[in-house]
């Protein structure tokens, strides 16, 4: 209901932005559809642009069966979701922003599945993470913020692991091109196989919400419902699945791969299915069922067998169709009735007929009733689970239980929400606007149509996708009726179990509520721990005493050159003598000024001493032929004195016998000595004048300037100077901000 709650100035350009995005997405989907004939012959379409040639990274794109399935899902669903959101978010203040974020996501996700370069893939991967963050936090409530942060931190951390894994993969295989990496075959025997796989899996599991990183996905339901349908069920969360399928030829085929994916995926599937039964909030129940689906996809990707690949690819399409449709239906119900609570909804077939038809069709596919595509997918899943050579029995049993729980959820949608007596909803239900019921209905009808004629997607999409995933041609035929076999028996068992779960929903939900949970509590504890931990570190490192900071900084300044000298083998033989009388006088002025500053008991005197010392220094520069440096030195000195003098009235009087004076003298002496020794040591080595000579020689003919220092600053190295003045300006702005702060709260 949050979408309608934020009423404000209506956003007039919002609907137009949505219409534009819907049209562009639909056009893109049509363009991708034209590639189907070519791709279904197991060919690939490629395009390439140079991006960072120095790093051998290029923007290479490649469409094969796997990419095409995802590209069609992304663009096709993008069109449906955009059209839906025009009406769903009508009148929202930030509707245009919403479509901007959605477009950002769609572009990023499309880039992710089309990229043929691991670095480009990673960049697009991060774009989808950021877009997801923006969309989850779209309603800027406290809850939405927390959820957005959680999704960003978990998927972002996974992204970092993935980057490391991909770079390592590139180093090991000698190429960043994905098609070349996968064509080279399995890496199973390589020494770096295990760390690379672990890093890649961390990224994929975080993105695709595998246990125990799944907690962000149910929280991400704080996003507007079309976002949940699009990002958090149909596309983005499947990026991890995509990655595992994409790198399948390179990383699969080991016991580690099969066991890890089977265990993590299987456990996630079962756990999420059980947790979904506990939810009274329909949207949350769907979220957990999405986690369940992702778990079963991951489980199938662990296998080598063609039938498992076919199961994964078919279920990918099935799930996207029915789950997005159901999410959109729930969004519509939420908008029209004011609630998503299973206990309060009922009898919507009378008041919201079109929405109800979409809901029932999608639920039928989710439950896997014939003749929906869901039935085909479920049969394949069972066949795939049985085909996984290692331990088929537990996986198959887990799949049956998880699917039975999905049946129970589907039955709840059909019998409690759509049929049954009218519920007690906050608003009197009425049919949603056409744009809102049309999208989910289209998707749900798609699930029915492809179920009746499964080969429509089987040969065109599933077969090439499975071939791309396995790295070898695959022969796959999808059929609605397989005859009486073991999978069919399992389907019957699933249905019976599902009905039982549905009837025993209340007691079961109470039982599940007693299960140990606490992943959320651990997460919050982790965040709190990080904050308190770093607060303690900050208190330790930054006690707030300027004197301490300066002491530490200057000691480090003294230690660095001394350590350098020590490493270089002690003090070199060097001598230096001042002979010119004016240089001697200037040096005396320097030393006298410094001593005065150190011994003075009043600040104004110390300041005068510093000024004298600076003047002496600039005179020294002048005697040794550096008028530019001398002028800069004296001007900086003058302005620094003015600044210090301006601050001085605010400082307390110096106590007559200052404590820590000998310590300050030690630090100052150490810095002076260290810098002097280092400078002296630097004069010993042979001076390479080639750069200086070249600059001097080129100065007049090439840069039309006789002052080499200036020519270097503003011409030869102008970009460096530009960086420096940006720093100067930024430092001044930062200093001003600090001064304003202290003025507002006088300490």
């Amino acid at each position: 209901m949050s979408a309608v709650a934020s009423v404000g100035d209506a956003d007039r350009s919002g609907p137009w932005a949505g219409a534009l995005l819907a049209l562009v997405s639909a056009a893109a989907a049509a363009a991708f559809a034209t590639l189907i004939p070519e791709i279904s012959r197991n060919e690939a379409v490629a395009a390439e642009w140079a991006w960072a040639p120095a790093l051998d990274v290029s923007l290479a794109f490649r469409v094969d069966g796997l990419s095409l399935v995802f590209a069609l899902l992304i663009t096709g669903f993008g069109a449906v979701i955009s059209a839906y959101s025009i009406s769903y978010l009508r009148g929202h203040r930030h509707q245009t922003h919403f479509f901007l974020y959605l477009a950002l996501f769609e572009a990023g996700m499309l880039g992710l599945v089309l990229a043929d370069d691991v670095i480009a893939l990673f960049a697009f991967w991060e774009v989808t993470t950021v877009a997801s963050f923006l969309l989850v936090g779209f309603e800027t409530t406290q809850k939405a913020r927390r959820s957005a942060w959680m999704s960003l931190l978990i998927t972002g951390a996974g992204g970092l692991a993935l980057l490391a894994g991909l770079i390592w993969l590139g180093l090991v295989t000698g190429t960043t091109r994905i098609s070349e990496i996968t064509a080279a075959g399995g890496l199973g025997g390589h020494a770096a196989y295990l760390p690379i796989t672990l890093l890649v899996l961390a990224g994929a599991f975080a993105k695709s919400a595998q246990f125990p990183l799944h907690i962000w996905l149910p929280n991400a339901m704080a996003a507007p419902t079309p976002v949940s349908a699009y990002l958090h069920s149909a596309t983005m969360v499947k990026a991890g699945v995509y990655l595992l399928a994409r790198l399948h030829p390179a990383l699969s085929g080991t016991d580690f791969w099969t066991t890890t994916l089977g265990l993590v995926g299987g456990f996630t599937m079962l756990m999420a299915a059980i947790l979904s039964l506990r939810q009274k909030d329909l949207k949350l129940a769907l979220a957990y069922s999405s986690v369940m689906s992702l778990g079963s996809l991951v489980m199938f990707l662990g296998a080598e067998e063609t039938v498992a690949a076919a199961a994964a690819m078919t279920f990918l399409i099935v799930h996207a169709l029915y789950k997005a449709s159901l999410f959109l239906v729930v969004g519509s119900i939420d908008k029209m009735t004011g609630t998503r609570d299973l206990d309060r909804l009922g009898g919507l077939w009378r008041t919201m007929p079109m929405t109800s038809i979409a809901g029932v069709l999608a639920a039928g596919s989710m439950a896997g009733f014939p003749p929906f595509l869901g039935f085909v997918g479920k049969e394949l899943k069972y066949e795939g689970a049985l085909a996984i050579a290692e331990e088929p029995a537990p996986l198959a049993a887990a799949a049956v239980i998880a699917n039975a729980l999905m049946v129970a959820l589907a039955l709840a949608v059909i019998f409690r929400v759509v049929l049954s007596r009218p519920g007690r909803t906050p608003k009197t239900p009425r049919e949603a606007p056409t744009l809102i019921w049309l999208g989910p209905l289209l998707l749900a009808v798609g699930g029915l149509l492809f179920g009746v004629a499964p080969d429509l997607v089987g040969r065109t999409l599933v077969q090439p996708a499975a071939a791309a995933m396995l790295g070898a041609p695959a022969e796959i035929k999808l059929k609605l009726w397989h005859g009486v076999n073991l999978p069919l028996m399992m389907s019957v068992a699933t249905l019976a179990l599902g009905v039982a779960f549905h009837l025993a929903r209340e007691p079961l939900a109470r039982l599940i509520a007693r299960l140990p949970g606490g992943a959320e509590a651990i997460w919050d504890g982790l965040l709190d721990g990080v904050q308190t931990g770093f607060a303690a570190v900050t208190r330790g490192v930054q006690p707030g005493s300027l004197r301490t900071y300066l002491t530490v900084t200057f000691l480090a300044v003294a230690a660095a050159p001394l350590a350098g000298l020590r490493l270089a083998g002690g003090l070199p033989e060097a001598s230096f003598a001042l002979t010119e009388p004016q240089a001697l006088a200037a040096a005396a002025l320097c030393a006298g000024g410094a001593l005065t500053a150190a011994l003075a008991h009043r600040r104004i005197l110390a300041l005068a001493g510093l000024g004298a010392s600076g003047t002496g220094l600039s005179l020294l520069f002048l005697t040794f032929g550096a008028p530019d440096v001398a002028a800069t030195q004296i001007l900086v000195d003058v302005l620094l004195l003015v600044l210090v003098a301006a601050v001085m009235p605010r400082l307390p009087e110096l106590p007559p016998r200052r404590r820590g004076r000998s310590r300050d003298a030690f630090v100052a002496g150490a810095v002076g000595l260290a810098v002097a020794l280092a400078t002296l040591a630097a004069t010993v080595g042979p001076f390479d004048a080639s750069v200086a000579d070249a600059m001097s020689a080129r100065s007049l003919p090439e840069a039309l300037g006789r002052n080499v220092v200036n020519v270097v600053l503003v011409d030869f190295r102008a970009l460096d100077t530009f960086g420096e003045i940006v720093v100067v300006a930024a430092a001044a702005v930062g200093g001003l901000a600090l001064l304003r702060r202290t003025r507002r709260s006088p300490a």
Partner: protein
Amino acid sequence: MTSPILQAATRLISTLLIVFSLFLLVRGHDAPGGGFIGGLVAASSFTLLAMSHGVETARLALRLPPATVAALGVGAALLAGLIPLVVGDAPFAAVWVFVGGPKGEGLPLSTVLLFDFGVWLVVLGAVLGLVFALEEDA
């Protein structure tokens, strides 16, 4: 600090300092000087004004807020770096124009001078931003 002598002297000196700072800026390419030193001299001129006549007077004399001056400086330097792109050269390459004469004789104008002017503005704005804020505090 209200001293009639300082105030009277400032009226002359501050203007002279500005002229001198521009002189340093323009001659910088061939002789000691340049945007950085020039900017510092200009900043001391306004600092003198702030100390003798008050920060408010100095702010009025500067006309723009110091942070804006610094930002304009960055903009001028960036512009100088982008102009070569228009004539088909690499960014931050020098472009020279000689007004009213052949190369080396006419009035030399260059992106280098614009760049140095940007440096001049940044130094002026950055220093004055801090000086004004601190003087107002005191």
